[in-house]
């Protein structure tokens, strides 16, 4: 329809998703425009690599376009999108065998790594010091606001593992950030 794209920015998301489900590219484009910030931020928190994050975010939206017809309720789109994003990340991790390697990390890594002073206040860099499963659980909980049950559903990890990853991850992240602040304040004083 000529000029249809002009009203996309004011269209509610469920209607856009419904139109995109029917093959409307303009509506899909608007969905990408609205949701890209969320997906790209999630991938950046998980990967700490802007180029890789954008590539993975593009893969997420390609999957969305391909599978949109299988989405039964348009209201379920936000959760569905999160699941596709998590699956895309997990596939990437599996491809690189990083998940397996990180599972072999020692159980308690409470002390900040030696490179922590250089970590900076940058949240993504601090997150990068955590193991893959810990980072994933923590980001889904704090960035996406997902409950433990939702994280279990999205990642396939047992509830106990999710809880422990979030608790230990939060503790470790606090330690890393505190160590950085200490170093920074010492440098300022001297």
């Amino acid at each position, binding site marked *: 329809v000529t000029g249809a794209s002009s009203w996309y920015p004011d269209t509610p998301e469920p209607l856009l998703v419904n139109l995109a489900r029917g093959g409307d590219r303009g509506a899909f484009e608007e969905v990408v425009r609205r949701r890209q910030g969320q997906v790209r931020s999630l991938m950046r928190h998980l990967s700490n690599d802007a180029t890789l994050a954008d590539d993975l975010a593009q893969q997420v939206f390609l999957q969305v*376009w391909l599978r949109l017809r299988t989405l*039964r309720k348009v209201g379920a789109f936000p959760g569905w999108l999160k699941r596709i994003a998590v699956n895309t990340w997990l596939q990437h991790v599996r491809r690189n065998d990083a998940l397996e390697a990180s599972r072999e990390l020692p159980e308690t890594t409470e002390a900040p790594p030696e490179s922590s002073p250089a970590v900076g206040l940058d*949240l993504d860099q601090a997150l990068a010091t955590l193991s893959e499963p810990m980072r994933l659980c923590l980001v889904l909980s*704090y960035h996406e606001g997902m*409950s433990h049950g939702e994280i279990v559903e999205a990642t396939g990890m047992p509830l106990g593992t999710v809880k422990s990853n979030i608790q230990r991850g939060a503790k470790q992240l*606090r330690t890393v950030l505190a160590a950085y602040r200490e170093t920074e304040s010492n440098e300022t004083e001297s």
Partner: protein
Amino acid sequence: MNEPTVIENLAAETRDPLLQALFTQAEPLAPDEEFTEAVIERTRRFKRRFLAGIGGGALAFAVIVLASYLAFPVLVTEWATLAFGFISTPIVSLGEGWLAWLLAPINTVGAILVALYKLIRVASRKAMG
């Protein structure tokens, strides 16, 4: 061991306020038109490759069938007859009556294969939400 209460569950899910503030303060990425265009281009590229794959596959199949027919005309005709006979074989023998005629479209190996394909599709759709 007793099941955790609702309050215990809520307490377990309570987030660290300092970390929550850090995540909240982290700058959300602004919409990037280049990113949107890259996604749209990727969907177009995928469609082109998919159509090329389908077209190439169909063409290759047609060439193989035609070449086989030209090389071994009798053999290909026999195989085609056999394959058609197999997919139209009745699963339950119902004789020649009206019931056999009525159920003919679904009482074949071909119908079972189609039903299986549909079932797998529905199951995979459910699994993907």
